[in-house]
């Protein structure tokens, strides 16, 4: 029966090739545009660290003076930490790390070659275990190295290869800015997207992978350049260690609900204590603890323009589907005579419904296939935008499946009403007209 209906549908579609083509094109355009934007949003809202994200938390306390503007052109300064606060918060966490992005001049081994600028992170010993980085050679540094402001560095696979080729990198020396560092480890390339742990307010959350990691205390000692948002409200004599300069990010690992509760309480208590000491001016209840995904939401990594584009695409799809419903309705009703003959010969309403349903689904499937092609072209053009997020806009399997489902579902739903209407045609009335 199914094969017969399929054959009928094909014949019917072939009878009006131009109209069929235009209907398929309309669905294809609507689906293609919607899927392009859904995919962009999907990759921007994805979990950057699926294995570990459930246990990673970002604390938030508010050390700013009362009258400090909450949001400036670069985001909220209280999203970052001062040095003393970061150290106090780490002490209390089982596993955690403080960090800041840095942009340094990397000198090749050959002194005649020109140096180049690369992005990396200054951080504390816990970083590698916390985020689960894997080492190709060597290892990270120890808390003792942090204490000692050791001149050590961990390179990414790519940078190690660029500097030392195939040779062993561990134990070699590399010059960063004006100081020599000993390489103690090489990590496998690691680039979670979005870069949840970076200072999102200044980077937009998507960007190039880090090429090196070195101890935060060492970077502070050498006064190496910081690439994130820095906000200060006190003339600091302690430089980067000033209690009046926010510039660090802090991530902690909390294993279960009890630990989360305890840590949240600790944040409030800490803020209250700092308030008694006269350092904090804002209410201690401002203290918060974000889960990783909650933090990404709070940072609003998805630009308003992209959301607007999604709504535009969905509006477009709505109009396309309305259009398809109207056309299918007109088309099916025009065949009332044919339906009546079939009904008179014994076809049930159900059969008529099924026949037209299959015809709609066929248009939907063709439209879906076209939609996938259009979405791929759309994503290709998105990837050529100069925005940082553009490079990650790729369709994965789940989105591909969703496209097909959306297309078939959309057109079957669109065909539902016309097919139902056609199956209600009163045969006697039509046959009389013959």
């Amino acid at each position, binding site marked *: 029966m199914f094969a017969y209906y399929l054959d009928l549908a094909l014949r019917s579609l072939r009878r009006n090739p131009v*109209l069929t083509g*235009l209907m398929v094109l*309309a669905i294809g*355009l609507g689906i293609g*545009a919607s899927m392009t934007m859904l995919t962009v949003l999907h990759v921007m809202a994805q979990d950057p660290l699926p294995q570990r994200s459930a246990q990673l938390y970002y604390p938030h306390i508010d050390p700013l*003076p*009362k*009258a*400090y*503007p909450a949001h400036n*052109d670069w985001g909220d300064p209280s999203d970052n930490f001062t040095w003393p606060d970061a150290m106090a918060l780490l002490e209390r966490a089982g596993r955690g790390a403080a960090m800041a992005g840095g942009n340094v*001049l990397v000198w090749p081994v050959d002194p005649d070659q*020109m*140096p*180049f*600028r690369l992005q990396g992170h200054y951080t504390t010993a816990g970083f590698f275990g916390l985020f689960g980085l894997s080492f190709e050679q060597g290892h990270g540094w120890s808390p003792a190295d942090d204490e000692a402001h050791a001149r050590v560095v961990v390179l990414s696979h790519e940078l190690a290869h660029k500097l030392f080729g195939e040779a062993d990198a561990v134990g070699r020396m590399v010059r960063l800015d*004006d100081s020599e560092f000993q390489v103690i480890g090489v990590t496998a390339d690691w680039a979670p997207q979005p870069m949840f742990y970076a200072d999102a307010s200044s980077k937009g959350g998507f960007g190039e992978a880090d090429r090196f990691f070195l101890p935060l205390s060492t970077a502070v000692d050498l006064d190496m350049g910081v690439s994130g948002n820095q906000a200060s*409200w006190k003339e600091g004599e302690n430089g980067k260690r000033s209690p009046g300069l926010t510039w660090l990010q802090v991530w902690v690992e909390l294993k279960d609900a009890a630990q989360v509760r305890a840590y949240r309480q600790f944040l409030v208590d800490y803020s209250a204590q700092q308030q008694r000491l006269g350092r904090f001016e804002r209410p201690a209840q401002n203290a918060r603890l974000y889960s990783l995904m909650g933090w990404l939401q709070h940072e609003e990594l998805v*630009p*308003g*323009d992209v959301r*607007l*584009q999604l709504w*535009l*695409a969905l*509006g*477009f799809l*709505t*109009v*396309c589907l*309305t*259009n398809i*419903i*109207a*056309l299918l*309705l*007109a*088309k099916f*009703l*025009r065949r009332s*005579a044919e339906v009546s003959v079939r009904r008179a010969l014994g076809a049930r309403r159900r059969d008529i419904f099924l026949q037209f349903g299959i015809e709609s689904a066929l248009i939907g499937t063709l439209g879906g296939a076209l939609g996938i092609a259009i979405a791929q072209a759309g994503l290709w053009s998105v990837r050529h*935008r*100069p*925005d940082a997020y553009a490079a990650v806009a790729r369709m994965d399997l789940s989105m591909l499946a969703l496209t097909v489902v959306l297309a078939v579902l959309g057109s079957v739903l669109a065909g539902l*009403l016309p097919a139902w*209407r056609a199956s209600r045609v009163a045969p006697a009335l039509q046959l009389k*007209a*013959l």
Partner: protein
Amino acid sequence: MQLRPIFSSLRHHKLTATLLVLQVAFTLAIVANASFMVVQRLQRMGTPSGVTEDELSMIRVEGIGKDDNHQARHLADLDALGRLPGVRSAVAIGPSLPFSGNINSYGACPSQEALERAIAASSLDHSGCLSIDTYAGSPGFVRTLGLQLIAGRDFTAGEYVTGDVSAVMLTQAAARRLFPGQEALGRMVYAGKQGSRVVGIVRDVMRPLLRGDGSDHEVMLWPQLPDGDSVTYLLRSAPQHRGRVLAAAAAALQRLDSRRLIPASGQRTFAQLRAHYFQRDRTMVGLLVAAGLGLLFVTVLGISGLANFWVQQRTRTIGIRRAIGATRVDILRYFQAENFLIVGGGVLLGMLLALALNLLLMSRYELPRLPLAYLPVGALALWLLGQLSVLAPALRASRVPPVVATRSV
């Protein structure tokens, strides 16, 4: 023209007609708002910067040794750059420029007391001070940028220093905000520990980042010499020479000192800087226009497709009408009037939907109110489009011969 037969015929196709009305309504709602957004973005992209954009190019140089004498270095570089063929003037420029996105802003106050009030409150609000962006450079930068002096004088050679400056210039907008109703020239402005005298007023120039809140031109110029490992040189040349001048400048600077970086990303014309700044707006305009055209296309497709079906379906009826005396023009008019009614219904509903959609966008994306003029224009456009797309099927209908009436289907 009798409308009653059209209405009674439409009642037979209630569902189809309703769907078409809905489609026209959605299309009008989206297209009206989309065109409004396009106009908004185009206006934003056309914002004049206030500098002579088509004659400027920038080149960034990054030193890699820490112990350089920066000022001597800059003087030698500028001397070489000034000699390049095609270069009208060359200056070292501070970190920010209009549309550069790099902010170098200060709280500026009209008096010592206002400054103290602002410091005591840790806030600029209600203190008479304002957040002002600064542009700085080496001698001649005001002229090289093409800024027009309205009152006062340019900086003297002795006023250019690397630290705190004693003289500043204000844009007209900044002067109005700081000293409302008073003469700003000769007054003191407090933007740091010590005050600086206003020696000149220049015509308005844009901030590094567009704010769109009416404060876009509040800028201060000061004679502070760039003094860091990294410096940007601003070159002014005839528009057609910009590319050649940039390439020659990069080569000349590298020749002067091979131990420094001149990244390709740091060599660009002002036009490129502007294009980069408005790149998202350009993408958005492209998408909005494409979506609008797509919607109109789909709507034309719907109207003409449906009209085609109806003509086929009613061939016999048309034949009968022709047989009992209707002229071709009558048939043509019938289909045109039918289309006019359907699109008219869609347009009325669409205007309401457009306003509703605009309200939604205003609440979510800080969009201004849709000017009402967009609605009749959009309505008229859709009506015309409807008439155009029904024309071919209607003409076909008018050519149905009366003899059809005597045949069976």
